Structures are given as C-alpha cells and as structure tokens.
C-alpha cells in the first residue's frame, strides 16, 4: 500500500469521512466520496506546499468533492423533475437514519434533520465548527474563506437552526421540559 495513503488514513480518515457523511447523509455515498478525496489527494500530494496544515488541506479537498457532488446531482433535469415530483419532500423525512443516530434522543435526531434546511455553506460551517470541533481559523483555511465570513455564516446558521428547533418545540411540545430543565 501507499505510504502517503497509510499516513493520511491513520490521521484523518474518520474526520473526513464524518464530514462527508454529514454533508450528504448517506453512508454509501460518503464512502464513495471519501475515495474520491484520496484519489485527488494522491494525485496532487506532490504539490502540497505545507502552507496550511495537512488537516485543513484535506478538508478543503473534501469540501470541493462534496460541492462537485452536489453540482453533478443537481443537473437541470433533476431540478425540473424535482418541481413536479411532490413525493420528494416526504421521502426526505423518511430518510434512513444511521444506527448511531437512532440511539440518540429525539432532539438530536431532529437537529440532524434540520441540517437539511440550511444552505450548503451553512451546513459546512456547522459541521466543521461543532461536529469536527475545528477552530474558526482552521475552518476558514479549510473553506478558503476569511475568518469573518466564517463567523457571519456560523451566526446565520445557528439562527436558522434555532428558529427551526423552536418552531418544532412549539408545534409538537416535544422535549419541552428537557429544554427548560437544561436552562
């Protein structure tokens, strides 16, 4: 096996995989995409200049792979079909949840669903900042943004999520107490 691959796998595989999984919410797809990340990395590893850390470099490639995937998926055909296909909304709700999540409480599960409602930029920031626990600087490097753009996007993402969560609590009254108690 390739020594570069071994090294990268040991250090970052699960981080990258997890990032991609939360982006596309499908294990098989995330597996394919993480392979695509390796292919791109191994092809251009010679050009890695060490200006940024390996970790953020890897995330920036993963981000490109994910964005390319969304672009490919959303060809004009799909976009038109989606408009006429009224079942797609329902299907999203029934999306298969990985076991890891099924064991968690309802709030977490709902949060997982709410991620869909964010824009791709917002989702990337949320995943990198809270699930991968990167710093603002690292996130900015991974996304190729300025730190202030990371901050504003993060702020908007939280605001959007908060509104979605609050609407749900209000509507269904679920886990209301839990929220209160925690306060």
């Amino acid at each position, binding site marked *: 096996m390739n020594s570069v691959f071994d090294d990268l796998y040991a250090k970052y*595989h699960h981080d990258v995989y997890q990032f991609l999984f939360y982006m596309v919410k499908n294990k098989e797809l995330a597996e394919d995409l993480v392979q695509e990340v390796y292919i791109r990395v191994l092809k251009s590893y010679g050009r890695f200049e060490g200006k940024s850390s390996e970790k953020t470099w890897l995330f920036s490639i993963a981000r490109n792979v994910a964005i390319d995937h969304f672009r490919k998926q959303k060809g004009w055909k799909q976009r038109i079909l989606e408009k006429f296909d009224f079942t797609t909304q329902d299907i999203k709700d029934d999306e298969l949840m990985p076991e890891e999540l099924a064991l968690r409480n309802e709030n977490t599960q709902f949060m997982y669903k709410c991620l869909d409602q964010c824009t791709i930029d917002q989702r990337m920031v949320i995943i990198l900042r809270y699930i991968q626990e990167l710093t603002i600087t690292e996130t900015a490097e991974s996304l190729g943004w300025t730190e202030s753009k990371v901050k504003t996007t993060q702020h908007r993402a*939280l605001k959007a999520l908060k509104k979605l969560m609050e609407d749900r609590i209000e509507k269904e009254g679920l886990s209301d107490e839990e929220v209160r108690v925690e306060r």
Partner: protein
Amino acid sequence: MRKSELSDKQLEEMLRQMPKIKDQRDPRDIYQNIASKVEKKKRAVWLFPGLAASAAALLFIILAPTLLDWNFSMQESSEQNSSAYDTSENDQSANTILADTDKADSASMFEAAGQEEEITSLAEAKEANLGVTAVYEEDLNGSQVLTYAIPDPNALVTIPVSVVVPEDKTKSDFDQYKDTMDSLREEEWGLADFYPLNAELSFDPSIKTVKADLPKDHQYGIGSANEIMFFSAMEKTFENLNVEKINLYTDGNDGAIFGNFGEIKEISIKDPGNQAYFFYYLPDSSVPYLVPFTENFKTIDAAYDQMTKDHETSGLRASIPAGIKVHELSGVEGATLQITLKEGTELTENMLHSFEAMLLTAKSFGFQAVKVVGAETDTLGPFNLNEEIKLPIAPNKREIRN
C-alpha cells in the same frame, strides 16, 4: 406561552452531541478501490506519447525509402541539367549553324552569336530565318512533325517539343512516333529525361486506343511529381496523334499502380480546348520555350490578356510584353484573325517570340492565318507583316540526330 427560547450555548451543545460516524471499512479495501484509478492515470502519462512516437517511427520506416529515392533522383537530374546547360550555348550555335548552312548564307559569323536581341538589321534577320522557334510549313518538305510533351527539370509543366523527321510512307504516324522516341535528346535541350517511355506501346486506330504495358518495376508511380508528369506527358503527346484513350497494363495485366492514385486502368484524352502560350525560360537561356497553358479560354481576347501576366505556380512567364498593345481582334474561327495594334506600337525583333506565342494561341483557337494591322514595320523576323501570315504547325522545334 410561548415562544420557547434556546440559547446559542444550548444549540451548540446539541450540535456537539451529534454522534461520531465511522467508516467501517478496512483501509486495505479502500486503497484497493482507489489504487486502480491512481495508478492507471500514472501509466497513461507515458502511454500516449509512447504510442504516438512508435506510430511516427513506423510511418517514417514506411516512407523513408520513397523519400530517399526522390531525393536521389532530384540530385541526379539536377546534375544532368547543369551539364546540359554547359553545352546548351554550344548547342544553340550549332543549331543555328545547321540552319545556316542550308541557306548557305553569308551571315554565319553573325548567327554563331546566337542571340536574336543582337540583331539590328531586319534584312539580315529575315535572311537568316533566325529566331523563330516553331515549325512552319516551309519546314515540312517531305517531312513530318512529331510533338512530344516533355517534363521540365522541376516537374512543373510539360513542354511540347517538335521534331521534324523524313516522311516514311511505310510507317504509320504512331510507329514514327514510337521509333523517334529513342532519338530525343531531352537533357541537351535542358529538359527532364523522359523518353523513351518505359513501356510497350501499341495502337489500335479503329478504336483510337493506345495500349501501354508498363514493367512491374516502373518508376512512374513513385512520388506525386512523377505521377503527374507521366499522366500529363501521356495525355499531351497522344492528343496530337488522334488518340482518345490509353489503356494501362502492368506486365500484361489490367491496370497500373500509382502511389497516389491507386490502380489506374485507362487515361482518357480530352480535347485540350483553347490554349494560351506562355514563355518558359530555362536558367541561363534567353530563348524561351513556348508552352501552352491548359486553361480553357472562351475568347482569344481573354487568352491574350492572360498572356500579359506571369503564371507563378507553374513557372511560366508572360509571353506578351507591355510593348505590344492590342487595340482590336476580329475574325471568325477557321478564317483569318485580324490583330489591330494600338497606334504607336512598334514590333521589334525582340518581340519575335511573343509574336510566335500569339500565332500559336491563334492556331489553338482554330484560326487559319493572322493579319497584323497597324504595325509600324514591314517585317518581323521571317514574317512579312504586309501579308497574311500562315500559322505555325507545332511549337518548339528541335533537331535530332538520325
């Protein structure tokens, strides 16, 4: 209540509680999946240039013999030419002396110089019959004319060269043509060595068809210049002999192979139509060959007009100088062409070849004779401009040894 309120802290906490998701696959499996792509791409980097290089090498190997052969033959012919030029001067004067002795003229010293530009006295020029290049009726005293199309040394045009041979009633025109082929001296004339043809020739007059049987190793199919000159020479030579078709054979079998054309079974000879005659100069020679250009001109006006311009691509030069200004052309086919010159046009001796080119062109347009009006001289070379001038029989007369 209640707009329930969630603090940012709570929200962040909930996000952090999202489960860690792990890829369950073995890293070796993952590498297996990507290895083919990563490594295959690497191979392709040299694969394509490698393939291209080997294809180029193969092509070179195939083409090399032809290229070398062509270079060789070019070299050979240029050597021959240069030696031909050395003798051309002598040859020319020899020719004129030959013509001269017939007439037993006193001007032989003068003609040995061989340059018609130097002729100052019209009378002398007329007496000497010097300078005309075509074959005229006077030349045919119990003789017949054979015209051969011979490629020039650069293989750009074929030049019609006419030789006069004693008439032999026992032989057909075609046999005369075949027999005389051996005594042509193309190289001395500054042209490419082309005759005798490397083929068995026979003629069936009833169907006006020539049968040309080429040997297996014939050189006419090697290189596009060879091919084009072969076809051009065949067509132009045989069109004078009332031939309509040439059937090609190789070693007795139908058809002959030519590199660029593939197998050719027959050459059909088209009527050349109306042609205009241009000058073709050999290097070091001031006497031009008069060469017809195969463009079908509708009117003789158009042909004469074209003859004032060079034809660069075929190496042909303008045959009508600026000094000859035609005012009007009149006459019908089969009769006399009247050439009215513009006032002030003086025909001088150095325009003799131009005048011959005009005569030959008129002949190709089907005229029988030419009458010049408005020339400020009475004679030009051997021609009496006060009378109708009979048109030449054939262009570019050359002597052969018998």
